[in-house]
């Protein structure tokens, strides 16, 4: 069996592969949104004055960063029913990917918040802002600028990592490729099409990320990574 262009183009235009790709996209987006929210909460807990909150956050980050996502997914989907917790494929995939993402994102958020100059929180406090307003108006918008580049990398990673959910039979791009491969044994063609699918998704995301970064850099004159405001004598 040699390379078949016919099969390659058939897979490339196959609605079945396209459906898989679509699932990969929404699964990644949903897991990313939940994961980032979890990460922000975990980061704030880790930076709080309460030792209990800090302890919970530390434990979560330690556990989820210290074990493979593949193991976490299998435990959630196939292991938990043993103790009476039955989750569907989609729920398991979203929960597994989100919790995993949250643990990594927490550290990114923490680094972003710590990169904001202490004078900024002093100024916010001095203006009568409580913790919530200070974070929302002053600290988080500035931390966001620092967080966005690694956040983009995380999402790029998520698009690819979500393929692990195929082991719990989540019907995403890799799973659909596997299924097609088992029917016609055109393994090379179908997996190359899958790889191209991931490439298109990550490349598109890369372009979107550039625009988001440029937007958040605008007040700073577009010099990414330079938090210091340079004064231009008028």
């Amino acid at each position: 069996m040699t390379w078949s262009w016919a099969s390659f183009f058939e897979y490339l235009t196959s609605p079945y592969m396209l459906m898989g790709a679509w699932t990969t996209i929404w699964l990644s987006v949903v897991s990313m949104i939940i994961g980032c929210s979890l990460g922000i909460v975990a980061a704030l807990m880790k930076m709080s004055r309460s030792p209990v909150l800090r302890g919970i956050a530390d434990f979560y980050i330690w556990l989820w960063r210290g074990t493979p996502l593949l193991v976490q997914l299998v435990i959630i989907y196939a292991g938990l029913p043993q103790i009476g917790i039955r989750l569907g494929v989609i729920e398991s995939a979203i929960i597994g990917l989100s919790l995993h993402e949250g643990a990594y994102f927490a550290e990114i958020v923490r680094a972003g918040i710590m990169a904001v100059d202490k004078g900024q929180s002093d100024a916010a406090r001095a203006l009568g802002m409580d913790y919530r307003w200070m974070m929302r108006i002053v600290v988080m918008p500035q931390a966001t600028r620092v967080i966005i580049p690694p956040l983009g990398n995380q999402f790029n990673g998520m698009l690819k990592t979500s393929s692990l959910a195929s082991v719990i039979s989540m019907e995403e791009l890799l799973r659909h490729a596997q299924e097609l491969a088992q029917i016609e044994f055109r393994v090379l063609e179908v997996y190359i099409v899958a790889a191209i699918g991931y490439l298109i998704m990550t490349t598109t995301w890369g372009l979107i990320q550039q625009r988001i970064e440029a937007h958040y850099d605008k007040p700073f004159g577009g010099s990414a990574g330079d938090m210091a405001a340079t004064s231009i004598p008028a």
Partner: protein
Amino acid sequence: MDMNTAAQAPARQPNSGNAGDSPAGELMVEARDIHKAFGDNQVLKGVSLEVRAGEVILIAGRSGSGKSTLLRCIDHLETIDSGRIFVNRHLVGYREENGILVELTDKQIAFQRRDIGVVFQQFNLFPHLTVIDNITAAPVKVLGVDVEKAQVEARELIERVGLPEKENAYPRQLSGGQQQRVAIARALAMKPKVMLFDEPTSALDPEMISEVLNVMIDLSKQGMTMIVVSHEMGFARAAADRVILMHDGGIEEDAPPTEFFDAPKSEATKRFLAKILH
């Protein structure tokens, strides 16, 4: 250093209140026996200070003498180890339970800080917000002022500090002196009862110092209660009611400017003046 411009302003008589003054003599800031240490370093060793409404106080002293820490304690940006601070008769940052200080909640402290404006050495403007948004952010979010009303008031303040047409600029597009004037406008937008200045001109190029001092002198003439940590002796002569010298965590001298400069009592003040006036 920059005596020339500031000294041109007419000398200010103590408590020379105009119509805008709060009732003179009313106690606005009171610190009683404040102690504060950072680790083993005892920074404030029992500082007591009274500032009356409309008074302008200049606090000088070598770096490490505790002057900035005292100022930060008044706004509860630093906790204190013992003593009491009252602003506008309210105990700042704490409530007293059986003689013991218990820190207030985040929201309660935030509420107290509405009365106190602070201007920082490094300006600390919010770099992601334009000039007008820097000024309106707190009134709109904290006080709940209507956005359009806040903008009208902000424009008046921008005018007052001499920066019309800069309202849509970002902080990085302004010089240091301009940024500091915006910072003063931002603090004033909360309509504070007292303004604290923490070395407001120390981070500025010499040619920009007078533009900031002139705004501060105007403010003092309008009867604002001000505590200014600074070495700008020109400002002291032009606008201060009292000049205080802090030394080694305590107050060494507390006198009207003429007395402070011409007949200082303490050795520390004489040494300080010898250095600063050459």
